[in-house]
Structure formats: C-alpha cells, structure tokens
C-alpha cells in the first residue's frame, strides 16, 4: 500500500491491519513516534492524520491510505508546530521525554484547529498520559504557544 508520511509518498509492504505505529517506526524508520501501551490509552504514539491527533497504535495502516500523515520528525515544518516546540523548550516541559512526541503533536493539532483555546479545549485535547507528571508544564506551554 502507499502511505504519505511527512509529505513523501512511500510504498510499504505490510499486512493491511498492521498498526500505523509499527509501519512508521519499522518500515519508515521514524522512531520519534513511541509505543507506550498499544491500546490507545496513553497517546505516546500520537501522529497527525490530516491534521488530527491520532493514536497510531490502534490505527490500521490501510485506513491511513490516502491521508496526509505527519510525525514528530517534521513538526517544526509548520508555524504552529515550531511555536509549540519553542514553548516546550521555553517551559522546560520534558523529563524522561518518552511521551513528549505525542504531547507536542496533540498540542499542535489543537492549536492548528483552535488558535486560542479555552481551558476546556485544552483539557479535552491534551489527554495523553505522562508518568513523569509534566502536566502542569504542558498546560503552561500550550497556553504560551497559543498566546504567541
């Protein structure tokens, strides 16, 4: 099947129900997208599918055919993504960092759709788990990226 990832269309030879996560990590070699739980509970595997934050560990690769998939590796290619990364650095958000690819992309999806989100918008969009408990700094960073 053909997948369009980070602006490049690639032919991949995988079973159609292979989760998009593993296609991205193992076929395309993009390891910034993380495996955390495999059941869409944690969000470490979040990628953007046509701009929407999508948990790739339960997304069959075949269902992403014909979409524009964007991973953390090119997050800085958009103004919003660049602003989010800057806010993450400015607010010193990451600790272990393992969940942060997903957090940054979830924030990028939110702010692309809703440049000035309410607290409720942020709470609804930023549902990824962080075992280090960086939640308050994530919230601060989303706010500072939205004000920019």
């Amino acid at each position, binding site marked *: 099947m053909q997948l369009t990832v980070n602006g490049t269309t690639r032919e991949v030879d995988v079973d159609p129900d292979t989760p998009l996560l593993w296609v991205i990590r193992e076929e395309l070699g993009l390891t910034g997208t993380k495996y955390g739980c495999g059941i869409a509970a944690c969000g470490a595997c979040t990628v953007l599918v046509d701009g929407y934050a999508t948990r790739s560990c339960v997304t069959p690769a075949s269902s992403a055919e014909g979409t524009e998939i964007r991973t953390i590796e090119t997050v800085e290619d958009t103004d919003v993504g660049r602003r989010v990364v800057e806010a993450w650095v400015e607010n010193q958000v*990451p600790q272990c960092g393992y969940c942060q*690819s997903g957090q940054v992309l979830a924030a990028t999806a939110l702010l692309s759709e809703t440049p000035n989100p309410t607290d409720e918008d942020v709470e609804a969009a930023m549902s990824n*788990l962080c075992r*280090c408990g960086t939640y308050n700094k994530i919230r601060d960073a989303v706010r500072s990226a939205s004000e920019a």
Partner: protein
Amino acid sequence: MTLMQRLTRMPAKVSRRGFLAGSGALVLSTTIPVRAPKAQEAAAGPDVPAFLELHTDGTARLLSPFIEGGQGVFTTFAQIIGEELDLAPENFTVTSAPPGPPYGVMGGFRITGGSASTRTAYGLMRQLGASARAMLLQAAAAEWDVDASELTTEPGVVVHAASNRRAPYGDLADAAMALPVPAEVALKDEADFRWIKTAVPRLDVYEKSTGKAQYAIDVTVEDMLLAAVLHAPRLGLTPASVANLAEVEGMRGVHSVHLLNGAVGVVAEKFWQARNAVAALQVEWTEGEAEWPMPADFSSDSFRATLSEASGDAVEIEATGDAATALSEADNVIEAQYDAPFVVHGQLEPPSATARFNEDGTLDLWLPNQAPEQFQGAAASAAGIEPAQVRIHSQMLGGFFGRHFLYRTANPFPQAIAMAQATGRPVKLIWSREEDFLRDAPRPLGLARFRGAVGADGPVALEATVVGEGPTQRWYGAPPGPDVSAHEGISGKSYAIANSYVGQVPVANPAVIGYWRSVGHSMHDFMYECFLDELAAAGGLDPYQMRLNLLSGNDRLHTLLTRTGELSGGWQSGPYEVDGTTRARGVAMASPFGSEAAAIAEVSLDRGEVRVHNVWTVLDPGQIVNPGIIEAQVQSAVALGVSQTLVEELVYENGEPTARNFDGYPILRPDQMPAVHVDIIESGAEMGGVGEPGLPAVGPAIVNAVYALTGQRIRSLPLSKHSFG
C-alpha cells in the same frame, strides 16, 4: 565494618545476593569517597580522562556514572563540572559511562537510585571540572612560556591579561588532556558560582520535544531481528509445548519460535509480526523451576489478610522511652491498621533489550538499566561468558521510578541473549505493555499496625509495627531491621514523642517485589502521618499545630512546616467553600533520602470521587544545584504521589495480576493533576536527594484532607476503592 564498607567489598557479579545496605533507601550519611580507588594513583586527583573529554571545537563530553531517565542528572553534572571548568553547560554532551571501576563512585559500586546521584557525585564533579581547568591553564602556560599562576579563565577561554593573550579551550584541549592530573586543586568559593544554584536549562529538552531523543526501544543494529515473548501467566510455570507450532512458524515474517524459561519467544523480521505471532501461540504450560514460584491461589486480598493476621515476633527497629508501659497506663489509647497496595512502575517506555554477539565472542547489549555493572555480571552469566566480554550500552530511560534495577525475572535481556544465541543474529526484544505488567517487580503491598496515646499537649506514646518484606531483603539479602526499605517512613520520623517504638514482623512476600519511587516511604509515611492525625483528632488537637509542637527545638523542620503553611496562604483545615465546592486541607511531612519535605493538600468531592485541587509543598534538600530541575522533580513526585493515592492498585487473583495495561490499571490523567506550588529551602544541611523526596508527604496530606472534609478515616489505599458521600 559499616554497611557501606561491606557494600564496597561486594563484587558486582555476586552482589545481587550480597547485602547492598538498603540500596533503594541509600542513606549516604557516611562520606562517600569521590575518587575511584586506583592503587597506582593513590595521591592523584580524579581520573579525568575516564570521565571527561575536551574537544578541539571547545566542547566537552562527560561520561556520566549515573543514568539519565528524566531526573535531570546529565544537565546537573554538566552544570557542576562547567562551574569549576569555566565552560558553559550547553557546551557539554553527556552520555552514560560503560561498566568499569572508574565509575564506581559510591565507594566501589554505583546504582542510579536512592535519589543519590547528585549528592554522591557533587564533590567528584567539582574536582573533575577544577582539575581539567588546571590542566588547560598548564597547557596554556607551556604554550606561552609563562607561569600558570598568571593565567585566568573566562567561560571557554584561557586568558593571560599581562600580555593580552587569549586561547579558546578547544585550541588547548589536546595538550591539556595529555598532561597528568594535578594531585590537588582549589575549588571555587560558592560566592563566585556562575551556574550552580541557578535554573540552567536542561540539555535534552529540544531533542525530547522533537522526537530526536533515542531510547533503548529505538536502538537499531545491522541485521537485527525483532522479538516478542509470551510469559507464563504466573512465575513457576514454563512452556511444555506449543500446540500450533507449525502454524506460528509459518506466519508472515516469523523467523523462529523459542521455548524459554517461563516464556515462549518469537523472533521475526519486524516487531509487529513477532507480536502477532506470540498472540497466536497456543502454549501448554507446566510446572517449572523458579526461585519465587507464584502460588496458584495467590491473591492480593489473601496476602493482605496474611499480613493482617501475622503474629510473629517483631524485630525492634527503633525505640525511645517505654511505649508499652506508657500505653498501658494511658487513658486515651487508639489503635489502627493501615495498608497500601502493590503498584506497578508504569514507566511509559516498555522494557526492551538488544543483544548482539560478535565474532570475537563478546556480547553487546543495549538496554535500560540503573546499575550497569550488575547487568554486566548477570548478562555474562546468562551468556556463559566473562563480564569483561560484555559491553553494556546504557540508554536514556523512558521513565524508570525503580523499574530498571536487576530483578532477574523482570528484565528482558536474558531472553534477548538466549534468542540471539539461538538465531545467530542480533535480536531486539520488546516486552509489550501486557508482558511488562505481568513481569514487573511491583512495590510490595504493605501493612502496619499502630497504637498511640494522646494527652492534652499531644501524643505521649506511639507504637508502630510494620508487617512484611522490603525489596532490599529480597534482592540484597538485608535482614529485617537493617533493611530500611521495609520500614522507612515509619522509622526515621523526627517528632518528639516521649515514648515510641517501631518494630517489624517479617513476612515473606510471594510476589516478585521491587523498588518504586521513594520505596518504603511511598506508603509508610502515609500510614504514620495519617495515624498521627488520628491521634490529633482523639486529643482534640489541630494536626498542623500539633506537629509544630512536636518539632519544637528542631529548627530545620519547624521552619519547613511553617514555610509550607505560609505557602498555602496560612494553615486552615476547613471545610470551606470555594467556587461552589466544599474543600478541606490536610498536612503531612516526610524525611526521605537525606532531604526533608512537607505538604498541604486541598481536596473536594466530585461526584463521589476525591479531587485534589492544590498541593503546596516545600522541600529542603540541604543544598541545591539546579532549582529548576528540583521544582520539576517535585512536580513529578507530587504527580506520582497523587496518582498512587487516588487510583493505583495492582490486584492479584489466582496468582496473576488482573490488570495487564493502563485500561485496567489507571494512572493519573492530566485532568486529575492538581496545581502544585513548590518552594525550596536551602538550609545548608548536608546535600540530600531530590528525585524521590517530594512524593511521600503527598498521600497522607490528601488522605488527612479527606478526613477533614468527610470525617471518613481512610486506612487502605487507593481512595478510588472507597465510597464518599
């Protein structure tokens, strides 16, 4: 012989059965030698070349004896060395040091744990920086034919003011590193610190915000195969046969199927193929060999009952006055029993290991770990080779919280080694989250009994008996008593109660148990501090004021608690109304890992569930290096403290954990995170730990607040299993 001395005599290979002096609760009160023992350099300075490279581009590389897993030590070390070296921290790259004697900086050994990294290495890192700076000055002096005493530095530059000459460190790097390490160097005056005690930005945040940071699970080795395993549902079972072996071997991408000790592994071209294949396995399990076979009828409920009913003799841990007599003579005696559940580590990066055998018989291992030499020794045993033939590549940890110590049945590397040997190819094994839950070494379920008496002025007697086993007994053979992991947080309290007694009734835990962030403190401070509130209530005393009274004459802790009260806007218990909610507050303290902490929590009830709105907490680590990292670590410890108090519990039934992923075992969600207000006191006391000490006071502060709000006294965690109004 002190515990530390016994510790240093333990070779890594056998230390797992030796007594490691409570490694999870390392009380590093003794002076740790900051130099690796090297006979031929008895009078020399630190082994600079083993730790530090100066590069010709002006940058430096540090080989860190401690592993980075989010706690910020790589940045902290760059900051400390940079201070003395006079090189800005952002010019450092930091990687994990390989196994080896130079890195045994805890007096001949090392682990990343016990909140010990920075306080252990602070002196060494300063000496390394100062020594390297002296070597640069010496190199410049030779180059310019002047006396080194005429030279000074600015960040990254050696300066000879008299002749107006300047040389960037990079120009002098090769010459400097070829010089002998000076035997003695002067350290900077603290008043002249440029970076230490400031919130230097972390070195790794950009990489971690853009997916560039690499973890063990991301390792790629040429020609490697990917592997998954299916563990026996309980330890002690082992595969007898696979009924559909041919079918699984014929699945797409599958290379081979391996019957391992206690598990079946599948090696494939890709991980998802291996994962699919293990999901399809039809395994017949049979009783096998295991050091800790899990009884088929084991349940956490029955084990809690076992602890509750245990009536053996107690080992005395500590005693003041005569608690038994005081209790027998007191009018107002109350009794209570507390317990806390098994909890998993839940680090977001699932465990993995990549094993590659080389033509010369050596083995390379890329894996998460908190103790490289111990893993090297165990890997050598597993592979049947010598430790010197094993190269350990310690990776950045995607969270750890105690998950990556050597727990034998909880680490994937022996299976990766076995499958790499069997296939003749490098193998990366990833444990799915389900397999991680099944083989994690959880924080032990704990229980303690209390009796206390209170008078008009406060508690007059307190007797506590902890029942159970700590991880340091399990893994390092520490006997009850010296194994502080079994009682810390009930022992080691600082309140001046005239008659007090702490004992432990040892009861072996059938489950595989491990170290979890703040170890024994993670549950024992909850038990003690909540019982203390019971005494306050029984005496009609305010819990905050009663604690202050119990700390009179202890300036450090009195100041700490007072500051915490002030941070919260002035102590009040409540209940009171805010934003249409009824809220109340609780207070608690803890003395973990050489630091002191106090917390006040504010809670309300939201549709029958406890909601934590605010946590005000003050940490006194004695001395600080990076206040930004400390604040972040306290935020993190509070989050884990709230999480385990509200929702976490690993339940066993029929010898198996009932939860195998985050659907059946919730961890704190973003919308459950309270506002956390952190203050840091630098009292000047000996430097204490930072990563764990923010956790233990949080739980009891919450549970005490719940009592203030509801009148319900919760003595068993988590709160989610209780019903509220």
